[in-house]
């Protein structure tokens, strides 16, 4: 496929010539970027505040905004101001299900930004059975009981890690292996991201996103499977552990996550249609959303 792209483009490049177009960078005013996801199971709200840059900015990282005024509101009532610690704004508070939260950030030289989001009921009633079949593949059977009377959105991921009881290795960061995302597949048809591949009828990805539109207020089963070479079990001296993670995302985070994933997948593809990434930050960019996570860990013997 890449080759075809090269042929198409090279046919134009034969003739083409290039020049720079002037951009008045002064007219592109940086905006505040808020990135904050509320987790009801955590007791601290963490928020990243950075600056946007024009597209000619060519560094990998973006400057953090320090000494900004960042406030958190619950159902319209101010809870308090965030503290800036180690590059993050934090506010010690455990958000509540069924509440709406507003964040306001202001800093001299920038437009004030505001964002509002709603915390859904955390997932509690989930059943996950993870097992290896014939040393050839790993299957995860997940049953989600949809939270009543709410629009819910879900993300399912699998991660794996090898571990050893050899303390010398555990304490040596060179050998320490972090959790790795596991590439798995599903034949489920309600998955919104990624979309199914007609070649074999399945979806394969490191994450699956879907809404409860087709199983509102009821239970739903989704099965994931992955071949053995995606997680390399049974290495000598190591054991493999697998985490199946179900995140319940609210509307804002779900839309951000899907559009961001599609945007990321298409980077560098000149034929793909542009993807505007969802943002709910007024006068700025980023995401203010909410999510709760349910995990299940299985050790593969």
């Amino acid at each position, binding site marked *: *496929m890449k*080759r*075809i*792209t090269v*042929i*198409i483009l090279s*046919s*134009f490049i034969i*003739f*083409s*010539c*290039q*020049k*720079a*177009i002037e951009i008045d960078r002064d007219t*592109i005013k*940086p*905006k505040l*970027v808020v*990135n904050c*996801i509320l987790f009801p199971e*955590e007791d601290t709200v*963490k928020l*990243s505040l950075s600056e*946007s*840059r*024009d*597209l*000619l*900015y*060519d560094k*990998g*990282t*973006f400057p953090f905004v320090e000494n900004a005024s960042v406030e958190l509101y619950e159902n319209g009532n101010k809870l308090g101001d965030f503290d800036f610690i180690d590059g*993050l704004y934090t506010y010690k508070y455990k958000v509540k299900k069924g509440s709406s939260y507003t964040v306001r950030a202001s800093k001299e030289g920038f437009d004030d930004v505001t964002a509002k989001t709603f915390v859904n009921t955390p997932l509690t009633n989930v059943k996950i059975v993870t097992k290896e079949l014939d040393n050839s593949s790993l299957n995860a059977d997940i049953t989600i009981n949809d939270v009543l009377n709410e629009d819910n959105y879900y993300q399912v991921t699998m991660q794996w890690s090898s571990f050893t009881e050899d303390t010398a290795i555990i304490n040596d960061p060179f050998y320490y292996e*972090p*959790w*790795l995302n596991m590439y798995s597949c599903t034949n489920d048809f309600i998955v919104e991201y990624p*979309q199914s*591949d*007609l*070649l074999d009828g399945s979806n394969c990805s490191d994450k699956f996103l879907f809404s409860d539109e087709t199983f509102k207020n009821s239970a739903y089963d989704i099965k994931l499977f992955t071949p053995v070479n995606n997680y390399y079990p049974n290495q000598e001296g190591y054991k493999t552990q697998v985490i199946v993670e179900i995140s319940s995302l609210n509307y804002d985070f779900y839309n*951000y996550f899907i559009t*961001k994933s*599609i*945007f*990321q*997948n*298409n980077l560098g*593809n000149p*034929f*793909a*249609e*542009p*993807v*505007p*990434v969802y943002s709910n930050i007024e006068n700025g*960019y*980023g*995401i203010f959303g909410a999510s709760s996570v349910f995990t299940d860990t299985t050790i593969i013997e």
Partner: protein
Amino acid sequence: MFKIKWLLIFALFSSVVLAQNKYTISGYVKDSKSSEAIIGARIYCQELEIGTVTNIYGFFSLTLPEGFNNLLFSYVGYEPQKKEVNLNQNINFDILLVEGQLLGEIEVTAEELNHESTEISTISLSMDKVKSLPVLLGEVDILKTAALLPGIHSGSEGSSGIYVRGGGPDQNLILLDGVPIYNANHLFGFFSVFNADAINSVKIIKGGFPARYGGRLSSVIDINMNEGNMKEYLAEGSIGLISSKLMLSGPIIKDKMSFMVSGRRTYIDILARPLINAANNNSSNYKTKVGYFFYDLNGKINYKINDKNRIYVSAYMGKDKFYLEDEFKFYDYDSLKFRYSTSEAGMNWGNKIFAARWNHQYNPKLLSNLTVNFSDYRFVTGFENQEYYDINNPEYDNSFEYLSGIKDVGIKLDYYYYPAPKHKIQFGTNLINHKFSPGVGTIISGGNADVKVDSTFGSSITRSNEFYFYVEDDYTITKRLSANFGLHFSNLIVNDKYYNSLQPRVALNYVLTENSSVKLSYASMTQFLHLLSNSSIGLPTDFWVPATDKTPPQRGHQIAAGYAHDFKKGYALSVEGYYKTMNNLIEYQEGASFLSAGKNWESIIEVGRGWSYGAEVLLEKKIGKLSGWIGYTLSWTNRQFENLNFGNIYPYRYDRRHDISVALTYKINEKWDIGVVWVYGTGNSLTLPVQQYQQYTNPNNQNNEFQYWWNPAIENYEAKNDYRMPSYHRLDFGVNKHKTKKWGEVTWSYGLYNAYSRQNPFYIEYGYLPNDFAPQPTKVLKQISLFPVIPSISYAIKF
């Protein structure tokens, strides 16, 4: 609707009654040298001030009172011919017009004047004009010339298709001898598939569509091929910088049967092959071949069985091909023989069409035409990698092929009925079977490898049946008021679903003074096809898909109003305004492309609406040493899709606020003529990110530091198509030198395309300039342009 029906019945009835003391003159108007039909020639009875024009077969029928009548037969570029006829019975004869010199004002009356006609938003392109205007690389091009007219533009250099009054490239019904052409472009739109030497006439309709046309929302481009010379053999050919072409025509049976064949092929691949070989260091172990060419072939046979029956058989075949092949061989010391590694990749696309038509004249007032046609458009891209010792037994053979196309088989019956001078009635029916192959991919993995795959994915083939009926009457209601009323009823059966659409059409012309008129039209159009196309650059990868439940038929309505004034000395002015709506348009979803392999096309599209409005001014000079036109268009074109651009209205990518075109030729003397084209257009709309920002990363995720490289900045698009590219303008200049030889005529054509070397935008992206060799190159917004000033020379002969 009720009124229209009764008006038609009344018209038919009154014509029968009134025709009792009248007789009909009918026949064909032809060129005296070749006997080719002259389309649009005027037949005028001066005493009665009534007339008609020939149809696309050169046929005319005029009913006049008994007795002596003086008739004038005329057409631009031909000497008018007067004929007195004593009518005491129906008469059938052919008129042969002699090609003449520039005759001054009399030529102005040689064809129906704009202000006399019910046609609105309609322009006939003269092939002489098309051939005399300067063009890119000397390749005479009908569609590029059409794009110089107001309301029509060609997107950008390198974009395929043309855009008429805010419509998409799929909304143009391009007919070659009555058969639709689905991709009328060579080399991504730089050239059209129509070889000008093989073309007789071109008519472009942008609005006020007569009921005989249907199936597209935005325009009709009706192109007729030459019929072939009935009297003598004729050859025309030219040698240009990138291609050569040849047209032969002549009698098979004199005055009975003629043929026309023409061919054209580019030879960039052949000329560039030594350079490519040198650049790729080809050796005995390594060989590579890269190239591109296109060709097209046209042919037509015209057989006059008798005065009442004629048969026309026409065919077209054209193809574009890109190819890339390389072969590497090395000696394998284990097996003690050469092992070969080869790869081939490429793409090709092309049309094939065939039409057989039978003209039958029942009586002087009724002519029919039966057409059987076939067309096939295919786009194929793919690659194949092989490793082998013996080519018949490969160790490894992997291939991928992606095909999209549309195949039509159709039958069409049209009747032309001339009951009275005030009525020209046309009615008919058409049945088309479409076979769509919208993006079918095939992966084959074979050879001696362990894993073998042979799989087809993407969309399955879809068949649909489309049929329509129509009736229209071009009715001269009073001396001042004339109208073209019509109804077009189209139907589609696809996937066991039935769709239909009744489309009323009306065009009115009211003559204000002896030189001017006002016009008004309404047309409802339905289109049962969609073209799924990329929004960045138009490619042959765009594919045709049928209307389905997910993508209902496109429906459009257009109202146009205009003022036409024919001045003395051949000047004509037309001013028109229009408003057009288009529903059920399709676009790719955000993030999707034709490379979304494995996805059914219906799952990667969005359905929305569009609308366009604007004004067009065309000032033409049709005759004289200086001729040509100046056009100006002011327009707005928008789109709205529920799931694109967050549901907000956005400008169409080819929304062009201002568009100016100047196309003039000046005949200095019999030897020399010059042509000048200047175009200006507001820059195209583009979706361009303006700011970038850090994406969300979970602060609790222990892997963030490892994954940081995989969290690229998010580029923020404020809105779809909210960036305007720099404006487009270009000056072309050409000189033709004609020399008459004993055996024929020679023409040397010299041209400059983009004479002041304007760097017009092809596309825009962020990146680095190729000549920035600094250790840390500067990121810029760069514009890629295709053509600087390009000189051309071509040599043409005619004998």
